[in-house]
């Protein structure tokens, strides 16, 4: 009920109620974000029969897996990993992925974009970018695995369409996201009900920022694929980004390859993930670098978000992560 009792109201001059005592929490902001993410994992484990964690070997999915392993320790993870492999992944990242799967005794399913192209189900795009091609293999894998929930490493600070994403995001059988039909999400009460054919995308790192992710990597001593740290690499410039040459179709005529000291802020499909000039070879150096950076993570390194002002929103509607 709306209480009718009148209580002390602070004076408008900024005076404060003397009864208040500062609640000094022994928990840091990272502790609170970690506790929230673990709660989300356990909710899904408690309510869904089958779920999968999208694991690409990118830092967000690595942090997500790290929290998940802690949330169920000392027991093994109660779900499997799923990787949508575009066929253009960094070899270092694939090697890392396989090492982690082996180390923790996990089960990994790989949905291959290349296989879909080879059998004619999908066609290569003229620009060579394969990120938009991931949706179909992902949805087929979700259907074939009968997964009710799929964990993604998406964060709301990444992009403006993601700022409105729920922690539990209901998707129809086409994986589509309808921003007008999202369920209200209150307190820590997540509604995972879904109809046959529907599934729920779950984002345990919703409230983390890029800086939180890196600070957590430092705090926990988490190993990352080496491409996240400064290294010398042959690159060429396209649309103001350093791209790595490879089978995916770069460089084109007129694009010259040179060697630079770079690192990656995000790791995805090689055709649209750009490197940034960097000398940061340790976690601390990376944190110092992004603390001083004046370019957002996606702006610096994702060509696919630059296609239009609403590029991410459109891909989410179509069933993207």
């Amino acid at each position, binding site marked *: 009920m709306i209480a009718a009792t009148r209580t002390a109201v602070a004076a*408008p*001059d900024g005076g404060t109620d003397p009864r208040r005592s500062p*609640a000094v929490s022994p*928990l840091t902001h990272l502790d609170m974000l970690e506790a929230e993410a673990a*709660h989300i994992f356990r909710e899904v484990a*408690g309510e869904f029969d089958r779920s999968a964690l999208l694991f690409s070997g990118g830092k967000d999915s690595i942090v997500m897996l790290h929290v998940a392993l802690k949330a169920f320790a000392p027991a093994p993870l109660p779900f499997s990993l799923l990787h949508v492999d575009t066929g253009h992944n960094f070899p270092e990242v694939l090697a890392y992925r396989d090492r982690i799967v082996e180390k923790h005794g996990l089960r990994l399913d790989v949905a291959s974009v290349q296989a879909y192209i080879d059998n004619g189900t999908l066609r290569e795009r003229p620009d060579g970018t394969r990120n938009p091609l991931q949706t179909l293999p992902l949805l087929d894998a979700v259907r074939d695995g009968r997964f009710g929930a799929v964990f993604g490493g998406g964060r709301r600070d990444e992009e403006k369409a993601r700022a409105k994403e729920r922690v539990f995001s209901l998707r129809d059988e086409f994986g589509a996201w309808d*921003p007008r039909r999202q369920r209200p999400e209150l307190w820590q009460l997540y509604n995972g009900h879904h109809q046959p054919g529907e599934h729920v995308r779950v984002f345990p790192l919703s409230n983390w920022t890029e800086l939180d992710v890196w600070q957590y990597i430092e705090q926990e001593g988490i190993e990352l694929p080496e491409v996240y740290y400064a290294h010398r690499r042959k690159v060429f410039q396209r649309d103001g980004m350093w791209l790595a040459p490879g089978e995916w179709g770069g460089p084109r005529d007129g694009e010259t390859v040179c060697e630079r000291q770079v690192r990656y802020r995000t790791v995805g499909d090689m055709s649209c993930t750009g490197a940034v000039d960097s000398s940061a070879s340790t976690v601390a150096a990376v944190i110092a670098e992004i603390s001083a950076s004046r370019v957002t993570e996606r*702006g610096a390194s994702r060509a696919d978000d630059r296609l239009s002002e609403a590029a991410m*929103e459109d891909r989410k509607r179509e069933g993207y992560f």
Partner: protein
Amino acid sequence: MTTGVAETVDRTESSGRLSGGLLRLATCGSVDDGKSTLVGRLLYDTKSVLADQAAAIEEVSRRRGQDGPDLALLTDGLRAEREQGITIDVAYRYFATPRRRFILADTPGHVQYTRNMVTGASTADLAVILVDARKGVVAQTMRHCAIAALLRVPHVVLAVNKMDAVDYRESVFTAIVAEFTERAGELGVADVTAIPMSALAGDNVVEPSGRMDWYGGDTLLSHLENVPLGDDPTGKALRLPVQYVIRQPSSDRQTVERWLAGQLASGVLKVGDPVVVQPAGATSTVVGLSVLGRETDTVWAPQSVAVRLADDIDISRGDTLTADLAPPAQRRITATVCHLDDRPLRPRQRVLLKHTTRTIPAVVEHIDYRVDVTDARRLPCDDGLSANDIGGVRIRTAEPLVVDDYAENRRTGSFLLIDPQDGSTLTAGMADAWAGD
């Protein structure tokens, strides 16, 4: 414009140990109060807007023939919102100072979007309610204030915006504060701090104003950095809703250790503490505690923990560990609810009720009244609650629940009503104090 994007950005110390912790706030205002500009100003002046985002909004502003960057563009999200120039949905924004991390729920102010403000306020430690200095306190202002009171948001900031449009006059501010303070008190808002500002010109949002010498208080950001975090959950009675049971086979595989996993909703728990497993009422003693795999002897809210008990009692998801038998498990709840779904909530409707980690069948026995949120008057309600209505209901559940008075414990006093057919979230509920059978 008084500030631009700084050349270097020092967003936080690198240790990750921000001494001020994490503050969740919700911003609420009517359509033209300048909320988007205020949120944009907070992000822009705390250097949370980086070069490419700033360049993008500067480009769009230039195309539209505006002088400076339109900060409201920073918070525009979806295509339909840009097309219609409105905000449809709660958006979450993130910024940090060297002292504290902030999660900002940016809630739309339209009348029909009460549910969005309820959503944003449900997790907020602090609500910023915007008023246009030229218009003063309007019906929508009190609606936002009432929702903040209803959701028990611990702190309220009255942001008297657009002071530039009233020549920064103290008398305008004082009159608005006097009216708001009196009416907020009637609605039960405990703690109001009023700040005169101009989000457009940058006065008193992040930078102190040089044009309001008569105001001696904090800027908005300085207040956000220093206000105590919400109510301290460690000072309350123990509540640990069990989410999941982690089974660890012993090394010889002859026995299985059972760890009860959950996030402490409130209280502190130590090895050796006696606990009651509700609703069954069985008692036992804590023999092991772990925080995400690391064994320890004390845990406190809101940590995600696992607990091992001395006795092998039947415990599963949905049970709650408490220190004693209060509150008693009950099958009748009286509650204040905010209806969210477009289909009305009707008396005798069958629903699923989700409370902490338990979801059970329930029936809405009676809808007692509807609340006029502008003045907290109770109105008769014969035909059910429509979307965005707030009302009082009586609910009977299929199984006993351990429900707290929402005023005492937001986490264990809140619940959702869910449509058993299509799974939609229908209604958000806040339980009243238990009045006995």
